[in-house]
């Protein structure tokens, strides 16, 4: 008999919510665990490197990550995300308001 898989793949949107904003040409994405037990999964799997790969083609600079264990949240800074930012940007989302939702498409392994 095949061993039952101990994790299942889910999109971040199932275990987290998020909000984003801007600072110049940098978008920030605050990613918040929907339950405290999901926070360690975010810390372990949603690394800066993974987020940079996720947004490949959408951002031109590096990704920084900060941890807020008190809020069960991570904060990402996506540099070079806004086509110059603010008034310069030609993007619909010139202020990065919905970058947060794009991050929620990332897939993570959720322990069963």
């Amino acid at each position, binding site marked *: 008999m095949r061993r039952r898989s101990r994790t299942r793949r889910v999109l971040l949107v199932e275990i987290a*919510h*998020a*909000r*984003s*904003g*801007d*600072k*110049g*040409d*940098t978008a*920030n994405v*605050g990613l*918040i665990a*929907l339950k405290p037990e999901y926070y360690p999964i975010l810390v372990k799997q949603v690394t800066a490197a993974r987020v940079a790969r*996720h947004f*490949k*083609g*959408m951002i031109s600079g590096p990704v920084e990550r*900060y*941890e*807020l*264990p*008190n*809020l*069960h*949240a991570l*904060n990402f*800074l996506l540099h070079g995300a806004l*086509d*110059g*930012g*603010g*008034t*310069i940007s*030609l*993007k*619909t*989302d010139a202020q990065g308001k*919905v970058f*947060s*939702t*794009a991050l929620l*498409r990332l897939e993570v392994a959720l322990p069963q």
Partner: protein
Amino acid sequence: MKPGATTVRIAAGQGFWGDWLEAPYRQVTGGPIDYLMMDYLAEVTMSILQKQKSRDPSLGYAKDFIPLLERILPIVAERRIKITANAGGVNPRGCAQAVAETARRLRLGGKVRIGVVTGDDLLGRLDGLLARGHELRNLDTGRPLSEVRDRVLSANAYLGAWPVVEALRGGADIVVTGRVTDTGLTLAPMIHAFGWQPDAWDLLAAGTVAGHTIECGAQCSGGNCLVDWEHIPDLANVGYPIVDAAPDGTFEITKHPGTGGRISVAGVKEQLVYEMGDPAEYITPDGIADFTTIRLEQKGKDRVRVSGVRGRPATDKLKVSIGYFYGYKAVGTLVYAWPDAYKKAQAGDRILRQRLADLGLKFESVLTEFLGADATHGPLARASAPLDRLPEVQLRIGVRSPDKAAVERFTREIAPLILNGPPSVTGFAGGRPKPEEIVAYWPALLDKNMVEPCVEVVDV
């Protein structure tokens, strides 16, 4: 409200210039409050106001603040509610004068005192500062301001809570400021009410967190809230947030009874991470707040308690927000319908780009987005969307250039595509796009001792 108060109630009335006009009225009539805080200034707002002032020296402030005050001033005066607002923009004195005229018209002479905070405006001092070796290097790019000096339109230091405190101590009922930080407008009433000291870093940080929580208005009370968004009740009647602050730096976020929206731990978290940089270093002129120390607790329905906030001493710099002329841009849109909506929009884009190239027009940037397909999620959306079955797609092309003529020529190339490009196209009712002047934002730091805030309190 005197030093030694046991609580102070601060209500948010505007989260940005253009926010809901009903909100301040509802805040002053929906239940008891001590202060109404209204934040008007975003990064580039100052440049827009500077432009208005250069056309008419009596302007340069948030004009709609005046009719709004006209509506609430009698109630505010009767209930002894005080107002802190950075509606003064680049002309706080002009704004205060308009407020005074309104108060007199409402026969509130002798009943209202107006505080004016200035000293943030550095435009007239820029050359002197540069000559004295203050380079005002761009915080993002490191470039010195001298490179764009001749294109600078506005320059304002971010002042903190203390000048507002001084105005309140001077007996002001309505404090009108220029570029005071969003958070300072909420922190100042707490400092004033509780007699907090300038080096009480934890308390100042707590008040700063309170300010950050309510500075975007309803964005912490159910508006733009992703978590459980479909079940947030009665957003049509959304209650703007209120801080119930205590002298020990703890506070509760709530809203008036009978209003819509929701104050929840999850919703407050969303607002706390909004526009966040390094959460351990939320830097303001009043001190540094460490957002990793914040503790949140649901105390009841629509009531979240905030405690544990730690702070660190303020730096010896002030942030300066500089607006400078950058160039021109324009954005044109067309809508393509099924069948092959996405392919038609792509073809429209290719044809337009070829025409722009054939005309020899030079742009710093040409950006194409396909709304309905990939405008907000880019390649992530293309990987999952049924692009061949979309009922409609909006082609959106933007150009940017220092050359106004090139941008103007671009705006004439959109409409012809309706009859001489791919089929099934519509959505051009708005007419030809207009070239827009770009005022770009140049953030910099300046030694704090170079800025001298000025506070006046005048009777009406």
